[in-house]
């Protein structure tokens, strides 16, 4: 009887170990780019993944960070570099540009009107849908600090947090899919 109990406990431990090795049905994505096309692709994949039954987490870093600024908010107390970055980088989803064929904004404007005509969701709509679907978003603290962005100038998003690389890696190592965009 005692031997059986021991065996049972041994199996239990093995099953627990196996469970830890099996990744969750999750997609972890780094959004490094701040280009309209790449950020749009990120959101198409993210919302599609939720439809496929996956848990989704997006980690916005470097050029991706200013995409999540709120165009109606601003933050004071910035130093010169912070003010410069603030002025030169896009302020929110409405201000991001195409990676190719931007043509001083003309290409981006044309693409946006084409997207509208073809019923392709805009970045604003994508963000709204992602929030509704429960897509989690982290913003990289280091990028925020580097570019002088403050938390109070970022968008309101229900499932948003501020984090560092360890948070992403913990999510990523338990994910079936990891992407860097």
């Amino acid at each position: 009887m005692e031997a059986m109990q021991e065996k049972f406990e041994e199996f239990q431990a093995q099953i627990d170990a196996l469970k830890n090795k099996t990744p969750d049905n999750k997609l972890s994505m780094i959004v490094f780019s701040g280009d309209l096309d790449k950020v749009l692709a990120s959101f198409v994949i993210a919302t599609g993944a939720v439809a496929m039954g996956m848990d989704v987490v997006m980690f916005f870093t470097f050029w991706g960070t200013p995409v999540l600024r709120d165009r109606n908010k601003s933050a004071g107390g910035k130093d010169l570099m912070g003010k410069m970055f603030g002025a030169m980088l896009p302020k929110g989803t409405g201000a991001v540009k195409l990676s190719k064929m931007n043509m001083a904004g003309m290409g981006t404007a044309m693409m946006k009107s084409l997207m509208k005509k073809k019923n392709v969701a805009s970045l604003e709509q994508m963000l709204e849908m992602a929030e509704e679907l429960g897509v989690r978003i982290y913003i990289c603290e280091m990028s925020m600090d580097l570019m002088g962005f403050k938390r109070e100038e970022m968008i309101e998003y229900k499932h948003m947090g501020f984090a560092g690389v360890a948070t992403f890696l913990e999510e990523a190592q338990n994910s079936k899919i990891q992407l860097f965009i």
Partner: protein
Amino acid sequence: MSEEIKADKVMDLRGMPCPMPVVKISKGIKEVEIGQVVEAHSTDPGSLTDFPAWARTSGNEILKTEQDGDVIKFFIKRTA
């Protein structure tokens, strides 16, 4: 003999490009009971490969796919 499939819910996904059709169907299917059927109409040609991929992944069953002009009709049974 072709059996008429009776849908418990009809979803109009016409005019919606990727990823909307799968996003909508994944929500819509949860609004019927397990065993019930959703009839979805899509005009996105990508749906022809996307819906089967979604069904396999989510564990639902596509009973029938029909093409009616530009409109693709899927009959999907909620099995998960």
